[in-house]
């Protein structure tokens, strides 16, 4: 787990048009729809069911943070979710960017609380960083915040039949 993102990767990808991009209002009733969308895309990008639900959870937590802290629970403000497949180094995965027009905060302040202190609330950032491989918060150029999250899919084992056929072809 890391909360650092390669600047080169971020810069390069930032100019690629998103494969999926949706705008929703900051109303909690739309959280379930956002989760279903992200989970379904993650499934097609090579994640198993449990991983998809965890990725959807990370997105849910990021959206809740925007609604709760960024927009002070206002339900009529915009949030954008953008998705890209990850194809770096021959692997698979998903890149998720969530943007808003909420008040800007110091990205360094986006830290989860200590888990030893058991109390209601404050778990969202910790869950996001625990689930995703890379998480980066930044201020958008004009107003609002952007969080970029990467998750790599586990490498698929080569099926026995394919490996044997390949070895036979070389022989």
């Amino acid at each position, binding site marked *: 787990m890391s909360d650092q993102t390669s600047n080169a990767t971020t810069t390069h990808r930032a100019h690629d048009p998103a494969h999926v991009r949706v705008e929703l209002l900051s109303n*909690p009733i739309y959280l*379930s729809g956002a989760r279903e969308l992200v989970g379904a895309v993650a499934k097609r990008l090579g994640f198993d069911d449990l991983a998809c639900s965890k990725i959807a959870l990370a997105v*849910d*937590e990021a959206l809740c943070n925007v609604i709760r802290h960024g927009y002070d629970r206002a339900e009529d403000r915009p949030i954008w979710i953008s998705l890209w497949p990850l194809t770096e180094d021959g692997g698979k995965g998903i890149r998720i960017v969530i943007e808003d027009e909420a008040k800007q905060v110091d990205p360094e302040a986006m830290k989860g609380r200590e888990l030893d202190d*058991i109390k*209601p609330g404050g*778990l969202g950032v910790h869950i996001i960083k625990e689930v995703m491989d890379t998480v980066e918060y930044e201020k958008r150029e004009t107003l609002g915040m952007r969080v970029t999250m990467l998750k790599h899919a586990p490498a698929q084992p080569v099926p026995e039949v394919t490996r044997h056929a390949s070895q036979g072809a070389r022989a």
Partner: protein
Amino acid sequence: MSDAVINVEKTDNPPATIVAPQGNVDMSTSPELRQALRSALDSSPARLIVDLSDVSYMDSSGLATLVEAMRTAKSSPRIPMVLCGLNDTVRAIFEIARLHQFFEIAPSRDDAMQTA
């Protein structure tokens, strides 16, 4: 407005109050779960069982609601509180938040009845 469904049931043998939410427990539905748990705890049941068998998804809002209820249950007078019926998705968030050891968790409602 959410469409949360939360069943509350009372049993005599053994005496217990069972709170059983259904569907998704997230930011839009957790206030209703919080209200149901507060009402249940206010009646000082012999034990409180939170049956999550029909919960397909839970986020940190739901977790926070359960933490709040557990803290109330542990205060004087103590009310035994047990969770049960967690599916893999729901269990995962407890483990990510490292709260699976804070709660008493039983596999099923029957097990929870024996445990509480």
